[in-house]
């Protein structure tokens, strides 16, 4: 159904008239031009399309725009503030936690969601949380290191 949908996107209020049953992924990528959110499988199996909805990681290929009405959506483009990388982004750069980079936005946002729920996760908890994000290049080892060092870096610092 075509209707007006309003929500917060990367800290700005927006309002769109769209078929509200369309998946958020496509509205972000084509209507709004936010291409940092990637398509990898379309069925919730890879995590490349992950965004944050009210700070929780959500597969944007599986959530309709109408389900984010009045919520806060954060995509990878909105994570760095005033040109300053978020500590998780920083940690990914420093740990070389990426190769082709196609899984990276989803990995970072899933890690963000984990650390906001559980600021000091154990290795097993990191693995469990990230297990449904696929990386074909095999950057896994470094991604885990990056999440660990981001957790340390953010210790005691209030989440933005």
């Amino acid at each position, binding site marked *: 159904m075509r209707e007006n949908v309003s929500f917060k996107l990367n800290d700005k209020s927006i309002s769109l008239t769209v078929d509200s049953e369309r998946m958020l992924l496509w509205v972000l990528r084509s209507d709004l031009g936010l291409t940092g959110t990637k398509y990898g499988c379309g069925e919730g199996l*890879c995590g490349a399309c992950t965004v944050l909805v009210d700070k929780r990681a959500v597969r944007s290929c599986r959530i309709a725009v109408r389900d984010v009405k009045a919520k806060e959506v954060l995509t990878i483009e909105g994570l760095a503030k005033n040109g300053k990388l978020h500590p998780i982004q920083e940690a990914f*750069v420093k740990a*070389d936690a990426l*190769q082709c980079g196609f899984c990276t936005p989803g990995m970072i946002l899933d890690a963000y969601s984990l650390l906001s729920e559980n600021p000091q996760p154990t290795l097993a908890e990191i693995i469990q949380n990230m297990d449904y994000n696929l990386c*074909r290049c095999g950057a*896994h080892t470094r991604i885990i290191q990056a999440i660990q060092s981001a957790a340390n870096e953010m210790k005691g610092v209030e989440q933005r």
Partner: protein
Amino acid sequence: MKEDEYTDIDFSDITTSSHLSRREFLKSLGGGIIVFFTVGDSSLLEAQRRRREYPEDFNAYLRIGQDGRVACFTGKIEMGQGVITSLAQMLADEIDVALESVDMVMGDTSVCPWDRGTFGSLTTRFFGPPLRAAAAEARAVLKELAAEYLQIPSGRLITKDGVIFDKNRREKQVTYAQLAKGKIIERHAKEKPALKTVSEFNIIGKPALRRDALEKVTGKAKYAGDIRLPGMLYARILRPPAHGAKLKNIDTSAVEKMEGVRLVRDGDLIAVLHKNPDEAEDALAKIKAQFDVPEAQVDDENIFEHLLNNAPRGKVADRGGDIASGEKLADAAVEETYLNSYVAHAPIEPHTALAKIEGNKATVWASTQTPFPLKDQITEVLGFASENVRVITGFVGGGFGGKSRSLQAVEAVRLAKLTGKPVQVAWSRAEEFFYDTFRPAAVVKIKSGITNSGKIIFWDYGVYFAGERGSQLFYDVPHHLTATFGARRGASPDPHPFSTGPWRAPANNTNTFARESQIDIMASKADMDPLEFRLRNLKDERMLRVLKAAGGKFGWAPSKAPSGRGFGIACGIDSGSYVAIMAEVEVDKKKGHVQVKRVVCAQDMGLVINPEGAKLQVEGCVTMGLGYALTEEVHFKGGRILDLNFNTYELPRFSWVPKIETVLIKAEDSPAQGGGEPPIICMGGVIANAIYDAVGVRLFQLPMTPERVKEAVASRARSAVLTT
């Protein structure tokens, strides 16, 4: 490869004449100091000559711009393997500028000279040395200019960080930017350049972080699917349910009435287009089509028999001594057959392209490993003049060989022509699986023998349809024969029910799995520790060195297999690099599940340009290799591909990943070799050998799925009952 680089070089300037004069070409680059160089053999130059768009005597170049920045123009692409960093390191070091002052302009057919493609771990090996030579030449030119400018003999000049100064009086200096200003200087790299020696390196050999990381962690990096043009349409294309299927009838009436949807039919190409990709997808679902599907002849079970039945005569790849004499000398012989299934590339970014056609000019953004061959293909499809077709490759979201073919771009171009609009074709995951050029299913048959003293005396090796790479024996065996039956590609008739193609270290995964399994079986027959057995049968110093290095790091204590520890070894050679891998696994006998706990990889890759990047590639290979070793196989029935997403086709996950330790052998005096592929070749063999060491069962087929492991354990238990 930043977005604005797509546009900052005016397309029309560069390609108006069918054969650019040197002067025009230099001017089109914006002047500065330009050094041309040649990469690869003369056939590459010949290929460029035929296209007549560039001056003819080089196929790569670098430029020191008026701003002092150094740019390298190359047809190579970055798909995760890290050459955007390692090539820049070589260039920066040799020319003496900071790494940050180097720009890599890659994979754009209008500004980069002709290149065959990015694959085979060739970039560092074959592009690196001439690039360094060109950089050395550029530095020499700068010094000459500086000597004149400063009125100081060039012997007294020092170059550092883009500045040249008098070694006696530091304040007497001039920058590269000042020297390049207002000049158009053209040079060629020398055949015997004065390169820096290892002790003079400042950047080569030092770890460097990925230079594309910032763009990639912020979502700014542009892949082909991220380019947006005004008025562009997204296409979804009607696909057959199986390879070889023929369209019987079609009803598009439901789509014709849909608002905003364009239907295109051009021979075999039936597509719907919309300004949103998901709405195009919805429209496609409304088309009713029936296909005639040919009856399935082969499937994932009987394919190996089919391959053997269709194998052409063998070609001898390598031989020494005489097998019959070897057989007579052997005290024990082993004869086994090894199988591996089709494997998908499955990059997380599916094949994607955007095509724009204006008048007689076409611009195509494509995720491809082969921008120039793709350009040729598009030129032919459109019938345009070659200089009017431009292929731009942004970042590529993983290739692994699968993006050597780029059908999606041809589809996009055809649709752009038919609709008069820019058109994006982005394959769905299902299309990606369906049209993948799989790593071929293959069979290896080996008969080999040993003497009582634990020496391999003969080796009779035949590989079917995998290909030759990695089949040559490096063990020291007096009587040996290696034959290949059916090439990896181009066998006629093609025995495969769908396309196959190169997959990260083509053929070598198959060959190394078979060889290293057979070696271990012989070690058991000889009652020897598998490492000791290998050391006894090797003379190759480099291989001995990596095996010993891996053993040291791993803490390998000799024991006959099965020791119950779950330790395995495998070694091999690929892309000029030597690798040895040791692994520890845990096998759940009831469930058949194999967990790899620890992996040590020792690699001799000659001079290491970026140790951090090299380690990253080792880890990538080890992790990706877990997939073809343990779960990855394409299920199919005839031309019907049964795996269409990651629910049934299982890629390695975080919970599978072992602790990975890498030892890079110090070999800086030998030339740099490939790093993006070698370690992956060992993963099948090392895990097979470790499983045997853990539970005493031998697996002869890849992948070693829980079902196959369980079955092997059960059948061993059955035969144990029979013999007691």
